[in-house]
């Protein structure tokens, strides 16, 4: 993925402000859409949003860095979030975690150099009765086993 140039961001922010409105209460939906489209929220994007919403860029930065699903650094096309909360842990999270790290060649918290995959841990995703579970972007995968994980990753590669 190529880092978007600033004109694209200006246009996108303008479009989103038109869609949601320029009031502060619309900040999160705007940020979520920028995150979804570009894979991260750049310094320039934060400044542009702040300018259009008439708030200080630091306010925007404060919000972006508060929420774990928003990021200031580029993330992969596929963000894999493995649940590490207790029920998934009891159900065999460690074997799944090892498989993910080995197959992707990534440690948790890392993004692949081709920006295809980001591997992260997350907290409870509400699939406790069907663990171990993970999210890939907005899709949920349950009752994971090492061989199931290998198949899922192969399909995305």
């Amino acid at each position: 993925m190529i880092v978007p140039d600033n004109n694209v961001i200006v246009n996108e922010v303008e479009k989103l402000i038109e869609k949601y409105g320029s009031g502060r209460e619309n900040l999160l939906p705007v940020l979520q859409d920028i995150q979804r489209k570009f894979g991260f929220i750049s310094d320039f994007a934060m400044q542009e949003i702040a300018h259009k919403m008439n708030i200080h860029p630091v306010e925007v930065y404060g919000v972006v860095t508060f929420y774990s699903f928003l990021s200031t650094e580029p993330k992969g096309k596929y963000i894999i979030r493995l649940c590490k909360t207790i029920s998934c842990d009891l159900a065999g999270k460690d074997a799944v975690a090892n498989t993910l790290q080995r197959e992707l060649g990534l440690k948790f918290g890392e993004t692949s150099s081709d920006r295809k995959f980001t591997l992260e841990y997350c907290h409870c995703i509400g699939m406790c009765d069907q663990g171990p579970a993970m999210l890939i972007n907005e899709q949920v995968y349950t009752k994971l086993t090492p061989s199931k994980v290998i198949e899922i990753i192969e399909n995305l590669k």
Partner: protein
Amino acid sequence: MPIINDTVFFDERAHGEALEKALKMTPQEVVLEVRESGLRGRGGAGFPTGTKWMLALTAKSDKKFVVCNADEGEPGTFKDRVLLSEYTKLVLEGIVIGGYAIQAQKGFIYLRGEYAYLYEYLNDYLERMRKEKRLGKNILGTNFDFDIEIRLGSGAYVCGEETALIESLEGHRGEARNRPPFPVNTGYLGYPTIVNNVETFACAYIVISKGAQWFSKYGTEKSKGMKLISVSGDCKKPGVYEVPFGIKVKELLELVGAEDTKAVQIGGASGICVPMSEIDRNISFEDIPTGGSVIIFNQNRNMLEVLKNFMEFFVEESCGQCTPCRIGNKKLLEGVELLEEGKCSHKYLNELIELGKTMQIASKCGLGQSSPNPFISIVTNFKDEIMSNSIRGKNGY
């Protein structure tokens, strides 16, 4: 053991049509019906729903808001996901009924980012309701206007706390506010706002549909109605169960096929750990209150590892705003690590318990007030195991 024959949620034929009924009543009558039912908030705190709605109804303002708290982040809870995806009508029309009861114009569903895959489905459902005149202008031909917007969260557990949730809706960091003022008079954008759990709205629907008397037949003196429980961990049949309030922990364990049980965590990470010697206790606001998370541990589980998992969760999810929660959780986690290494003296352990009790009093919001619960209950109930862990070294090996 009471086998549950009556189901409120899982039998669709029993749901009835509550919206039609509510709109024929006055807002006051709706609120009084909910109050009479004894319905208490299903998120876990158990505030009487009728009282909350009455406060919002009587608040004077030209704008009012309803918020459905679908930020179901408590570890081990998933009943709201099931309600939203399979019993959508109960929840969404329950929100409309709440809006009518307090005379609001707009409602929000704050859906956690982890459930983003439900967004499109719910939006389509809302669109269908608008076409059927069950949402939007002149609902069911009356002069009541009300609409619902879905807002997504972005992965912050603390936003399940109602004032943090409102902060997030307003485009801020999800940091809890001081209470009072309460959202019922100073909520979203400063307007009167009710924030209720997904299950609470579904219950309100049932209350209106079947009547307060029918609803309050179930449960105990101070905990009326049925409760959805999310069961996970070491048992044969994990899943969502509908049980009357007052059910004994023992009965629930039998129901879900739990064998060789060592302990049950009730109320998620912020709940308490119940050892086998206390399974005659019951699930209710009088005894063990819960938002509905039940996690079962069998004899092979290491309770110190369980505790460490919970404390890591709180260290990461504390918003950092107030000191008791920000520093306290770190100290408790360090204590768990000392226990693992066999370096935590009994004296220091007692000091940590005291620290936990201080956090319960001094933290600003529910997160820090309840995060010491698993620490205190696990180190108290499993002291021998925890301390022998420390003598034998990591993981008890």
